[in-house]
């Protein structure tokens, strides 16, 4: 079997269900090695950019790419090597904003920043802290897991503190 990119070269490995030659595999490994620490998953956040530069990293922070993989979203514009979306606008296509405040939010809802420039996934919901006398009841504590370029890792942060309690949830 021949390489999916270079038809005259023989297959050295199957990656994302397609055959690639030794040259492609080496370039793919180099492109993956150049990715920032927060990009998750890593092996597929690359693409073949043509003869000039070969395999290269995909544009953007990779925040939407993480959410797309977790929820199997492969719609809209450009996709990663494994076929998943990596634009924030694409991961919320066909989904509705969750109404009813934080009490209505569930694990695996998609959180999106107000500017629609960052996204993550609701990974944990803790019960509300005890109510103080004379104060309204506290909302539950929502934790969001996201490919955090600023923290250089896949991070889990509180919605009310790290994200300042802003943004929308989609389901």
């Amino acid at each position: 079997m021949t390489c999916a990119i270079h038809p005259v070269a023989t297959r050295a490995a199957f990656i994302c269900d397609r055959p690639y030659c030794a040259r492609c595999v080496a370039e793919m490994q180099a492109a993956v090695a150049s990715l920032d620490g927060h990009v998750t998953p890593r092996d597929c956040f690359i693409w073949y950019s043509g003869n000039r530069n070969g395999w290269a990293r995909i544009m953007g922070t990779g925040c939407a790419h993480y959410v797309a993989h977790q929820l199997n979203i492969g719609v809209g514009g450009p996709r990663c090597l494994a076929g998943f979306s990596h634009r924030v606008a694409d991961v919320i296509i066909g989904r509705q904003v969750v109404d009813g405040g934080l009490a209505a939010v569930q694990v695996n809802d998609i959180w999106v920043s107000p500017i629609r420039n960052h996204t993550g996934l609701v990974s944990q919901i803790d019960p509300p802290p005890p109510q103080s006398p004379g104060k309204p009841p506290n909302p539950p504590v929502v934790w969001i897991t996201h490919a955090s370029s600023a923290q250089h890792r896949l991070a889990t942060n509180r919605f009310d503190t790290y994200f300042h309690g802003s943004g929308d949830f989609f389901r």
Partner: protein
Amino acid sequence: MVRTLGWVKLSILLIGLGILYTTACASRGAKGSQSVNEPQKPNEVVLLLAGAERQAENDEQEREILRALEDLRTLDPATLKTKRYADYQSVPGKWTLATLLQRYFVSPELHDIDEEAVYRDAQSPEARDVIGRQIRAIREGRQDTLAP
């Protein structure tokens, strides 16, 4: 007499061909190195930023993107090549302008950035219009993902 007329006609034909060749060469020279039949390359900045989604996690990153776009809209290619910007963790001087654009913007189609072309093509009015739209989007706290 007949033979003389034949030479005259041949001479006129050769002179005419010479004029045509000279005119064609001059016309080609005026267009620079680009061949007459070669299609014009699309503007690299327009390809990169028109309809692109901006991805950033915090205000520091947004401010650095804004600074880079302001430079791209106003500085000449030689100066743009020397500029450096903070990376994702706000460490200053880590990225070139082209690297910053590649790390924060997602074009409507997968795109391979030609760094030299970005700096050169940024000087055109259509590129500056697209850059201006992205700058306005940052200042107004929104995306500018409308395709050109």
